[in-house]
């Protein structure tokens, strides 16, 4: 720290006297590099997201504690009633609970984007001659790390609770990859809302009516054959149902082309629809 004579609010800088020549010299350099590729620009934004995690590690609490709570809650709440024992129920529940938890935290992506917009940071990025979606794609790549963390936490907790996937490590990893790929695509919904809505709180507010029906009205907790017909109809077309089925299969070491195709087509549709709207909104802001 600097000497005691300097004023407190400008400590290291009070005695700074700019030398116009030196400032100007910085502008004289014409060795400016070529514009970065789409990938390089996205990776730079991803690096920004990682730096933020480094400086504010508390933000990782949400993505670890929340999944732990819902896994424990549902396992012990329903385990006895639905499957006779928690150990048995966790075999059925775990892939589904991983899907739900990861999708629930995708909402934070929208809140992060909204904060950046509100603070005006995107203004600077938008005056750079770079691939336009890079700022959004990069931020999302950073968030994928949180999804990986959340999925890992749940699987480890599941193992502790007695979960033993018959697909072994390979099957489990394949299942996690599928969930994370879907979460990446699903996040574009939140990016759109983040760009569209006025505050972080509004993003949070719209997320509940979207997330709850999609995740709960699925086959995560119980077999849909016990549900009334109209509900079964919704559950059947809900992409989350197909994702949960495909995830269970992968974890069990089997797979069904039909289910995987459903999931991957849903991903493509989500990215095309919400990605396009998001980029439009980003350009228009």
């Amino acid at each position, binding site marked *: 720290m600097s000497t005691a004579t300097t004023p407190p609010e*400008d400590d*290291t*800088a009070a005695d700074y*006297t700019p*030398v116009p*020549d030196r400032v100007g010299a*910085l502008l004289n350099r014409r060795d400016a590099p070529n*514009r970065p590729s789409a990938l390089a620009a996205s990776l730079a934004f991803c690096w920004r997201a990682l730096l933020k995690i480094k400086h504010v590690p508390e933000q990782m609490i949400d993505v670890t504690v929340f999944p732990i709570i819902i896994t424990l809650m549902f396992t012990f709440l329903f385990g006895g009633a639905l499957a006779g024992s928690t150990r048995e129920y966790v075999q059925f529940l775990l892939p589904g609970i991983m899907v739900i938890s990861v999708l629930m935290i995708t909402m934070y992506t929208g809140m992060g984007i909204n904060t950046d917009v509100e*603070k005006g940071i995107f203004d600077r990025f938008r005056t750079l001659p770079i691939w336009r979606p890079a700022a959004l794609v990069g931020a999302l790549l950073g968030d994928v790390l949180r999804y990986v963390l959340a999925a890992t936490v749940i699987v480890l907790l599941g193992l502790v609770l007695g979960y033993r996937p018959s697909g072994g490590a390979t099957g489990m990893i394949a299942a996690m990859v599928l969930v994370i790929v879907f979460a990446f695509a699903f996040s574009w919904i939140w990016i759109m809302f983040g760009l569209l809505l006025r505050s972080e709180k509004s993003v949070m507010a719209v997320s509940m009516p979207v997330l709850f029906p999609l995740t709960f009205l699925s086959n995560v907790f119980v077999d849909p054959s016990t549900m009334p017909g109209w509900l079964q109809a919704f559950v059947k077309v809900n992409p989350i149902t197909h994702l949960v089925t495909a995830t269970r299969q992968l974890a069990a070491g089997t797979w069904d082309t039909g289910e995987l195709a459903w999931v991957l087509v849903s991903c493509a549709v989500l990215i095309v629809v919400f990605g396009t709207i998001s980029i439009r909104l980003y350009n228009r802001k």
Partner: protein
Amino acid sequence: MAHPSTAPPAVETSGLVKVFGKTRAVDGLDLRVPAGTVYGLLGPNGAGKTTAVRMLATLTRPDGGEAQIFGHDVVRDADQVRSRVSLTGQYASVDDDLTGTENLVLLARLLGYRTPAARERAAELLDAFGLTEARSRLVKKYSGGMRRRIDIAASILNTPDLLFLDEPTTGLDPRSRNQVWDIVRGVVQHGTTVLLTTQYLDEADRLASRIAVIDTGKVIAEGTPAELKSSIGAGTVHLRLRDPHQRAEAGALLTSIMGAEAQSDSDPHALTVRVGAAGNDAAADKASRALADLARAGITVDNFSLGQPSLDEVFLALTDKTKEASPA
């Protein structure tokens, strides 16, 4: 390449319009900023300065009219414009949650520098802007002046040909303000054009070679600082009397000597005279004579100042003029 005399101006707009709901934030703006100069955009709150600058920096689409930056259209050739301009917004657009170095390295990478070169470039900028000691501190812990500087450093990282500075000194203390002024001088010395918005005539006067005064989205006057000032008078004399009961007498005396109406402010001790277009020397001369006469008449003056017209005064004078001129 083009001969200097045929080179396009840094900024040229005609009839630029931006509407927000019912507000015509920018309403037919015509500007021409010659390359290589500091150009001042002077106007009060809500005049449309920020909106105009955002359109020129490709951040907002105009609703009407045209704007070219070095001959490139801001809508059709947005990418070309982006590769030549940079904006330091009114509100800092650096990342609070990153350190000074990280902010600059990120931008350098986004401009295509590889990581080692990006680090080098960041270090150079931090050094020239007096931020080396603060480089590893989060920007949210910076003082107002330091934030401004890192923001400007981030804006010149890409060696822009045109730099927009939107109210770069609003809210800064005098020392930080002087630092920013020196930086602007350095930037323009090396050929970069600067378009600066400000609410202070004083600032435009010190830095800009030409000024456009804007109000309600339109240019209401344009010229060199000297032209603008002489068009509305050399300055203003402010007096503070010890005894408010002597104000009427003092006012009459002043009016006769200065050759301009003395105005009574809401403060009962104060008197203000706007000095005519004769120039500062004559004004100072008359003012000293007036002071002597006041003393002789037994009127005690506690405080006296001869100042440049404030933006308020420039502004009031100009809007009065446009009102007078419009019926003709």
